[in-house]
């Protein structure tokens, strides 16, 4: 097991190398640049700016320079937000997105699994139909509809929760509830459908029939014999989902005015803010591969048939 973990960790190095190299060159291929705004700077100013950020050097040299900086953990200056470095921008936004994402995914997982179990056990009865209808709504209605509707009902009409803001404001943790619910909804829907299908499959399996034939109560059959096998697919879904929920929260962050990384992510791409894009790509990929790695390790503990060598 230890050997497997070390080998997996080492394999992260080439993965990250390829990601950094590919993204570096790919974003340069896209037309336009950080200083080609609609106003059109004077030629001399542009030249000076390029020189300042070493962008007048040959591309490969820029790449080597950038790579060297990344190795010591320096993502360089932002070309658009001139008063902050990329490190500062990410350090400001990322933790907020992680908090929101973690709460939302925890909510989605817990509720999704509970509803999935209920649906599977009451298959083709009204409980199942209503839960699965809710799931279809969750998957098909976009976040920019769900968010404002929740704001309208719980903040404007009922006045239970603040319309927007973030946990450091006076409203505190209450500000977390609506955005987390909004962000959780589609993930909840997906997890509910996934766990329902998976539990139904296990319920029909031979080993569950064996468990029943031994006289075990239905509760023990479900808890001990069904859930463990049925929830494995959800564990493997959670890794990429966690990475996705954190970077994909742009809509929710905009609706609820949350200072997360999602907004900077989209803005940096539109602005051709090369160092900022690169910084975010690196942090995001690192996060994604780490999550996948953790899921694989977790799998080894949950499924005895998998032996890591």
């Amino acid at each position, binding site marked *: 097991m230890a050997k497997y973990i070390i080998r997996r960790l080492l394999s992260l190095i080439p993965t990250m190398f390829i990601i950094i190299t590919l993204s570096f060159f790919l974003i340069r291929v896209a037309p336009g640049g950080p200083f080609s705004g609609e106003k059109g700077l004077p030629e001399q100013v542009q030249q000076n700016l390029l020189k300042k950020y070493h962008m007048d050097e040959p591309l490969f040299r820029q790449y080597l320079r950038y790579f060297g900086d990344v190795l010591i953990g320096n993502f360089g200056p932002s070309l658009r937000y001139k008063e902050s470095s990329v490190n500062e921008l990410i350090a400001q936004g990322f933790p907020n997105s992680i908090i929101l994402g973690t709460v939302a995914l925890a909510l989605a997982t817990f509720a999704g699994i509970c509803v999935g179990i209920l649906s599977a056990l009451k298959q083709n009865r009204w409980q199942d139909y209503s839960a699965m209808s809710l799931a279809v709504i969750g998957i098909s209605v976009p976040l920019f509809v769900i968010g404002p509707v929740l704001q309208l009902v719980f903040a404007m009409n009922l006045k239970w929760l603040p319309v927007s803001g973030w946990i450091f404001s006076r409203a505190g943790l209450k500000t977390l509830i609506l955005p987390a619910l909004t962000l959780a909804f589609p993930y909840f829907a997906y997890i509910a459908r996934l766990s329902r299908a998976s539990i139904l499959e296990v319920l029909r*399996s031979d*080993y569950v029939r*064996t468990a029943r*034939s*031994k*006289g075990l109560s239905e509760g023990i059959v479900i808890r*001990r014999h069904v859930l463990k096998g049925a929830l494995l697919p959800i564990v493997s879904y959670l890794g990429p989902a966690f990475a996705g929920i954190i970077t994909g929260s742009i809509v929710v962050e905009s609706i609820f005015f949350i200072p997360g990384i999602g907004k900077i992510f989209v803005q940096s791409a539109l602005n051709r803010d090369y160092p900022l894009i690169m910084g975010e790509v690196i942090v995001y990929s690192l996060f994604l591969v780490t999550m996948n790695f953790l899921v694989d390790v977790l799998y080894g503990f949950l499924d005895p*048939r998998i032996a890591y060598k």
Partner: protein
Amino acid sequence: MTDDVILQVKDLKTYFKLDEGLLKAVDGVSFDIKKGRTLGIVGESGSGKSVTNLAIMKLIPSPPGWIAGGEVLLHGKDILKMSDTEIREIRGNKISMIFQDPMTCLNPFLRISTQMIETIVLHQGLDKKAAKDKAIEMLKLAGIPAPEKRIDQYPHQFSGGMRQRVMIAMALSCNPEILIADEPTTALDVTIQAQILELINELSERLGTAVILITHSLGVVAGMCDEICVMYAGRIVEKANADQIFGEPKHPYTMGLIKSVPRLDKTTKERLYSIPGQPPNVINLPDCCPFFPRCEYAKDICKQKYPPVSGISTGRSVACWLYGGGN
């Protein structure tokens, strides 16, 4: 004689509602199980053997299936009328089951110890420590080498034959009165098959357990069973003791089955006999003898009405128009 009867199945009917129509998987099956005896149920795939035994345990997946009628009397008490709590007292305790495919019948995520101990703790009220000792003892009886070590392993660390031994050990761990073995050897190698049958025979004799052996192989029942029921299209067509079935089969279907067993003492190079035609589709079956299209003795009446069950001698009956209308 009747004192020995543990379980009586009377006119058991189990139907399934499918999109294509009503499937009468089991349609009026009756038999008795006597203490310490072995009953064989023989039939083709789809003849209702497995469903009969799942119905005895009330394990029919519902929907789409349900028990449409009949009684299953365990010491005179009808299992089919029992509450879920009462029936759970019987499952794994008084009646236990082993299944066809040992590869999929053990939970791959749980250790053998967990799976064995939970049954023993549930039915015998032992604490976990004592239950584990009992489980190890059962594994030893079932011929698992080094059971103290093996018990903490997972199913995937066992071969198919070994897993079936584990299933047998688990099924017998609460000293059930009846062991239902549903094609216990079908998924195994021929050499392992013989060992497993031998094991079931030996353990049931030692523990005084009655066995219902479900199989499609006459060869398997020949060596093991005291009484044999031959099933066709959801009903028992012939019931007799083993010597009678093999010595003088009455029903044309039984005759066909026996003729199609390969024999070592035949020297001629003729092709192995097979019953012509296909087993019937039991969905929306009309009220005729379902075997008549394949029967060489078929008469007009066979196409019109299902033959009544005629008792030939004690414990022997056959459902065929050749043997009169119920005389």
